């Protein structure tokens, strides 16, 4: 159930790469790391969260993602999720969450989505 989070400041956005499982056990860790990123960009910064090697997210993890979206919106930033796994895409699909998140399959597409606004 380990979670590895890598934060990289890129030109115009911050890229957070996540490896592991996002669940009740460690979802707060992701929330806290995103909180630090938001605190560093109080005037609003765009964020891409790349679920690079995430093979599991539970309902708590989804709830945390909603909290993160809210937090980013409060600082007038944009958020794009990069979901690689079919299974995780399916979870966002059946819950209707794909309608409130911008979701792509690659970081390049996520950068393009941020530029589009």
């Amino acid at each position: 159930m380990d979670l590895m989070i890598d934060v990289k400041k890129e030109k115009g956005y911050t890229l957070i790469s996540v490896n592991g499982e996002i669940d009740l056990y460690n979802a707060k860790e992701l929330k806290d790391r995103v909180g630090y990123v938001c605190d560093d960009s109080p005037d609003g910064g765009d964020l891409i969260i790349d679920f690079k090697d995430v093979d599991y997210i539970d309902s708590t993890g989804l709830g945390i993602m909603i909290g993160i979206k809210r937090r980013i919106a409060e600082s007038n930033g944009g958020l794009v999720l990069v979901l690689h796994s079919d299974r995780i895409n399916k979870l966002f699909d059946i819950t209707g969450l794909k309608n409130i998140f911008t979701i792509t399959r690659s970081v390049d597409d996520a950068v393009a989505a941020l530029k589009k606004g």
Partner: protein
Amino acid sequence: MDVGVTDKIIIASEINELPIIREFIVSHIADAKLNEKERANVEFSVIEAVMNAIVHGNEYDRGKKIEVTYSGYPDRIEIKVKDSGAGFDPSKLPDPREPESLKAPSGRGVFFMRQMMSKVEFEFSPEGATVILTKML
């Protein structure tokens, strides 16, 4: 008449007990006639049920136990998750896909169970609440 195997595990109401439950379920469904996706769905649903038991049923009280029972039958598997909570009215759970619930941070656990299992039932008694997850084979 049903002929099957039954096994039971009891854990404390702590999130770091979840890997024990995962191992318990994964080992039991390994030989069931389920494909990879169905197996993942069962594992996911049981974890959601146990999380609900820890968080809502027993409210993180480590003195209160959670009982997970696995039963395998020729035509189905059945997993019961029992906590000490007072229970709730399942018919009043909001649909998380509805606009007023879509952005809620919680309330998707039972929805996932219903999506991923063949049948989801609840039993409430003075001793506690039990969710019964059934997957037909």
